[in-house]
């Protein structure tokens, strides 16, 4: 079976081609900015799914891992990332009580900064990807777009370097959210 894995660093490179740091004469079109933001989001999404399946199936080969990666939905990641944001207060409100009891049994949440940055970066880019792909009123200025691409780079780097217990919980809970699909 042909195997062409979706790789986060290649997606980040593609986003940078769409929104180059040094654009030369003129500026990239706002359509290019939209595609750049969407591509940067997918870099983060696929970096996370890669870590999730590697944690869930550490001994499986890459064909197996890439096969089950597509079972992880955007909503699966968004749900868990939102729990973390609400738990530590970067998002208003609180997670469901049973989730709070799991993640902060003493009532005092303890989540490392890198794991929080992964959750927060994903949520911000998820929101912006929706706008980039579907919102005709959305504005993507050049510095704002470059900022989102930098956010994606930092988030992918944090995902790939994550080793903390809390990041393990993040990836594990995302795996628990996913459902087996027909293919």
């Amino acid at each position, binding site marked *: 079976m042909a195997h062409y894995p979706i790789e986060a660093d290649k997606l980040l490179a593609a986003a940078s081609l769409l929104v180059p740091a040094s654009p030369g004469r003129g500026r990239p079109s706002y359509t290019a900015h939209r595609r750049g933001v969407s591509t940067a989001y997918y870099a983060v999404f696929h970096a996370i799914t890669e870590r999730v399946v590697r944690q869930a199936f550490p001994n499986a080969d890459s064909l197996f891992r890439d096969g089950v990666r597509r079972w992880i939905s955007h909503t699966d990641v968004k749900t868990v990332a939102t729990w973390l944001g609400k738990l530590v207060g970067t998002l208003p409100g609180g997670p469901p009580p049973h989730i709070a009891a799991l993640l902060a049994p003493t009532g005092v949440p303890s989540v490392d900064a890198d794991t929080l940055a992964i959750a927060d970066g994903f949520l911000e880019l998820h*929101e912006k990807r929706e706008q980039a792909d579907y919102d005709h009123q959305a*504005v993507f*200025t050049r510095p704002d777009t470059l*900022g989102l691409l930098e*956010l994606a780079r930092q988030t992918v780097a944090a995902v790939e370097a994550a080793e903390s217990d809390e990041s393990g919980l993040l990836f594990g809970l995302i795996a628990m959210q996913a459902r087996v699909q027909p293919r």
Partner: protein
Amino acid sequence: MTHMLEQFALTYRDDEIEVHRAIAALDERRDGEPVTRVTLLVTDPTAETWDVGRVRDLRHALGHRAAELGLPPVSLTLVPESEAQVVEAFAQ
């Protein structure tokens, strides 16, 4: 309540991001979830873009203020002065 969020944005202080004008409007995401869209006219960044951490802090501050005001979650857009013309309300 959106005007109170706009006032909050105008009083936000950061060494790098100075807010000159603010627009907050209620909207819905594609999935039907309510959202407060906040568009800020800010000083151009000194580099290619603003510091990611500073933008994150601004976004969190707006989100918490929005929650205090009973507004839905915030989606933030930054418009540098050099591109003010792309937002009709800022172009005048």
